[in-house]
């Protein structure tokens, strides 16, 4: 289980990006974090990844406090961030340096096939399209089999078609080992399509505003009325989060309370 306990972040310039964010995320759960710009969602993700330290509060994964990057936590950024001097195959195997070459090669080959890029193994990253590059990034993050995979607006730079394709692909890959996914997004459709639970944050300082359980089975039909209903409730909550006249409330009391529409 991934437990966030009153995680706060104040930058040296005095800006409080994150205030007492608490949440518990079950193993294998898919959680989407959504909110207006500047609500601290990326700050939160970087704290979970151990890339930036929280000013106060703790991130605990399976009773281990996370203060620096951890082997059980993988991350996918908005940009693929492939290493341009490594072939696609070597990029995917980048995190497997400790394995013997044969085992590494086998895992890479399997991952390449899994993301449908077997024919691109020896290509350079510059030869890939945006969607292909992001698929390589997903493969690179997944081959070390992390328990938690963090995604920071991973599909926001892609066109709508590719985005949907990759969202489905991500779910497909997730089903293999069922890691915990924490997905930061500003796309309501994406949040409802992927997540078991949507956490809505509100800005200045970034804090938890609301959480909405998405009680839909998978695969999800994006055109179903139920899907639309969930989208609407997330949107309404987002709107309210940006309305200063709406007071904060304790969002950690559990599900059900979001059904106020």
């Amino acid at each position, binding site marked *: 289980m991934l437990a966030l306990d009153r995680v706060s972040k104040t930058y040296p310039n005095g800006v409080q990006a994150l205030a007492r964010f608490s949440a518990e995320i079950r193993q294998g759960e898919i959680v989407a974090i959504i909110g207006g710009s500047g609500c601290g969602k990326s700050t939160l993700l970087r704290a979970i*990844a151990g*890339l930036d330290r929280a000013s106060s509060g703790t991130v605990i994964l399976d009773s281990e406090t996370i203060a*620096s*990057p*951890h*082997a059980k936590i*993988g*991350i996918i*950024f908005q*940009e693929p*961030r492939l*290493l*341009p*001097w*490594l072939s696609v195959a070597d990029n995917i195997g*980048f*995190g497997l*340096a400790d394995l013997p070459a044969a085992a590494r090669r086998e895992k890479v080959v399997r991952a390449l096939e899994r993301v449908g890029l077997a024919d691109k193994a020896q290509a*350079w*990253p*510059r030869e890939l399209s945006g969607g292909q590059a992001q698929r390589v990034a997903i493969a690179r993050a997944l081959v070390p089999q992390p328990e938690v995979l963090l995604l920071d607006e991973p599909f926001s730079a892609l066109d709508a078609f590719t985005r949907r394709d990759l969202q489905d692909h991500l779910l497909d890959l997730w089903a293999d080992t069922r890691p915990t996914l924490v997905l930061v997004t500003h796309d309501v459709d994406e949040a409802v399509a992927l997540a078991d639970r949507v956490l809505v944050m509100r800005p200045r300082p970034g804090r938890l505003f609301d959480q909405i359980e998405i009680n839909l089975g998978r695969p999800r039909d994006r055109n179903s009325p139920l899907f639309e209903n969930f989208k609407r409730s997330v949107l309404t909550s987002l709107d309210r989060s940006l309305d200063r006249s709406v007071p904060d409330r304790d969002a950690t009391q559990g599900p059900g309370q979001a059904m106020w529409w």
Partner: protein
Amino acid sequence: MISDAPVLQQTSEPAESAAAPSRVARYVRPLLGVLLPLTLALGWELVVWSGWSNGRLVPPPSRVFATIMELARSGELIRHIAATLWRVGLGFAFGVVAGTLLGAISGYWSLARRLLDPTVQALRAIPSLAWVPLFILWLGIFETSKIALIAVGVFFPVYLGVMGAILIVDRKIVEVGRTFRLSGPAMIRRILLPAVLPAYVVSLRVGLGLGWMFVVAAELIGASEGLGYLLLDGQQLGKPAQILAAIVIFAILGKLTDWLIEVASAPFLRWQDAFGRAKGA
């Protein structure tokens, strides 16, 4: 979708022909660069041959070539080339090692940069030839002072190139290394070194160019062999053909060594997505 298909086909055609020039163009294009010097040389040859000029101060190419052949036959040419190459090689090696080490330290470690860089920059502002009298006093008139001078010339561009390249390595790429928990040495080997390699190769080439410049300076100051000595000897004995012969050999050697660096680094830089590559240059 259907209406897209012909449009796609149309646009792909001119792009393809631009990417793969015809066979004739591929062989002719490099020759374009030779056209101007060749015309000038042939023209001058004709002018002297027809008696319009006696070519005493500006000897025609044939006489320069004859001088080179003569020097080669007597074995002197090899001796001079060897002496100069040896100096450039040693000076370049020392300059590169020092420039790379200090540049890497300054680039990687900000405390070292604050301590070291202002001094290095101040030293860089001194015209390197100003060191000559001091080097001669300290190191003597023979090889050591020459090699030191060349090393100084090579040092600065390499130092600057390495430090600058490390400072602008993309933070996002470094973060990838961090998420995979690379240790310090692994971060250097797997992220920083490959990332700075293109800029490093450029700085090596600039450094080598300066090395060739300074070897002439060093050999003009006082040497009994070397291509610079040939220059000076030609001036003092009024042999312009010998001066031109030395200059031509400098040009050939400079280009050749530069090309060696380029060829040796090319396999490591194939990944680059660069403007020059896209143009097929």
